[in-house]
């Protein structure tokens, strides 16, 4: 995919460091990626690899309470603006204007993401009223239109429902309606379907794809499940222990994962065509994501990696090497494990 326009969201060297009990723990290390308008980047990794922290850092929602230091650049290029805005440089008031308007977010838990004491219509209208200052009536009409747009049946009666009266899937639609109210340029969806059952999951994915096609927004789709990646994403970035370890077009990565971690994740996805076959067992990666406070030496994945070589993999953190077709991989042994023609670095695109 060639980028003629500047990307809607460009993240450079994003680092997040938490301070706790006087000691600092870096949880996110030098993340960078770009998402073009209309494009979906899936951010994939096991639970605890730092996906949510990344998304919260982009939204500047890591509050003072969590004592997080965020560095790097988060350039948001809104369709209405000439120049990209670095979200980490602007003041709080400016950030609040952009949040919910130009960059919006959907959360994992539709059950708790809505305020239980306010009607869903009011919660949607609140975004509209706050950002465009429209009068109550008009905001309500807009909320109704949004409910319709996200496919809620009988939207006019649902407007006055409370969150607890709706099913999980319906609530997630309400959250999506809230996020899309101002037609943002960038939508961050943090595991939006994880808490839902499979059929509802598929509906929500379809809805998100449709909405994206209609509005042309860029989407950062976060998930721990490679199964849904192929359904929504154009490109995929794999994250492990706070670092991006592999990135590329979805078809390419799915067809030929370069990093052993990615391969392990893919092997653990149940495949429809293989399901039920005798002797088929899901492979899982042994061990668990390391604690950010005590990362292993060298490659963070090395203790769990079947290809790890002592003395090589545990000496230094491998660099994220750029290959052709926007493919990137962070593996010391990439040269041995990957055919040479794929390894050749990509010609620099200007």
């Amino acid at each position: 995919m060639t980028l003629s326009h500047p990307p809607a969201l460009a993240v450079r060297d994003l680092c997040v460091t938490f301070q706790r009990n006087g000691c600092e723990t870096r949880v996110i290390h030098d993340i960078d990626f770009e998402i073009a308008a209309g494009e979906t980047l899936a951010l994939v990794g096991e639970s605890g690899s730092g996906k949510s922290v990344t998304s919260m850092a982009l939204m500047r929602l890591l509050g003072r309470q969590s004592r997080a230091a965020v560095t790097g650049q988060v350039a948001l290029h809104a369709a209405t603006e000439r120049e990209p805005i670095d979200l980490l440089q602007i003041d709080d008031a400016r950030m609040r204007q952009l949040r919910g308007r130009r960059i919006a977010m959907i959360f994992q838990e539709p059950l708790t993401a809505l305020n239980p004491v306010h009607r869903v219509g009011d919660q949607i209208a609140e975004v509209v009223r706050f950002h465009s200052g429209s009068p109550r009536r008009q905001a309500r009409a807009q909320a109704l239109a949004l409910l319709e747009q996200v496919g809620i049946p009988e939207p006019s009666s649902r407007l006055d429902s409370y969150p607890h009266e709706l099913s999980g899937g319906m609530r997630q639609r309400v959250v999506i309606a809230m996020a899309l109210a101002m037609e943002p340029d960038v939508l961050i969806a943090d595991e939006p379907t994880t808490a839902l059952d499979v059929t509802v999951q598929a509906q929500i994915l379809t809805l998100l794809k449709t909405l994206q096609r209609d509005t042309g927004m860029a989407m950062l789709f976060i998930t721990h499940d490679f199964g849904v990646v192929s359904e929504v994403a154009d490109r995929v970035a794999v994250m492990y222990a706070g670092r991006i370890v592999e990135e590329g077009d979805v078809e390419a990565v799915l067809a030929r994962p370069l990093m052993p971690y990615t391969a392990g994740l893919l092997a653990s996805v149940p495949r429809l065509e293989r399901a039920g076959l005798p002797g088929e067992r899901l492979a899982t990666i042994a061990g668990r994501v390391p604690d950010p406070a005590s990362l292993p030496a060298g490659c963070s994945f090395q203790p769990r990696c079947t290809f790890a070589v002592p003395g090589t993999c545990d000496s230094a953190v491998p660099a994220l090497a750029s290959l052709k077709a926007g493919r990137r991989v962070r593996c010391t042994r990439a040269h041995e494990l990957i055919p040479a023609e794929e390894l050749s670095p990509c010609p620099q695109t200007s």
Partner: protein
Amino acid sequence: MTTMTAAGDAAHTRHHWWQHRTLSRFLRHRLAATGLAIILMLTLACLLGPHLLPYDELTVDLRARFSPPLTQDHYLGTDPLGRDIAARLLMAGRISLLVGFSVMLISTVFGTLIGVVAGYFRGWVGSVLMRIVDAFLAFPSIFLVLVLSAFVEPSPFMITVIIALTCWMEIARIVEAEILSLRERDFTIAARLSGASARWIMFRELVPNAMGPIIVAATLTIANAILLEAYISFLGYGIQPPLPSWGNMLNSAQQYLADAPWLAIVPGITITLAVSSFNFIGDGLRDALDSRSNLP
């Protein structure tokens, strides 16, 4: 986050694995540690002090009435009968602290008993017991204590029993709630399946695991009991003179407020000090024993 949930069901190991960690957390809670130090010192002073002071608490000296603090050897002054306030304060401390501790013991044992039975058997037994708790809670405890103490011979023992009668409900409630959640846990179910008797499960399995909240509530009960004793003794329905208590030392204080304010100030500050110490200790214990709180 996920790595920490493993500790989830470890609470039932009865080896008090928390003990030393709890102690260090508690001590790091500076106010609680200060409170503990104050209570220890106060108790020591009440036990030893009266033997070291030049006056005893009952000697009347009408020539030395209303001496302000620091007159001669009356470090804290004298009362309307010329008795030494320092000596009375320390002797009173014995009574008031003893009442506080005894109330705590009685009401904790009784409240725990009710709470465990209600929580373990649930059903109508539990409902009836908890409604009785509610009924007792509906009476403002000061009203109840005053009525009862006006009805009986006000010996220190009866005063203790009466105050305890109004202090056990909170503990019963806390224990019941705790037991209701504990009884569904694996170790209780395992004990039930292995044929353990109800009494064994209640007192050997459930109560030890509910100890944290019980200890906290018991500590706060001491504070509450000291306040109640002080108030009814102040009104003349509690500990009877000549036996001194912190409350009855304030008995005549209002009358002489303008001329002898130290009569009010000395016991009042002592009560506040003791009660806040117990409250801070209770607070510190809550932080230390509560596995959910992530205190450094």
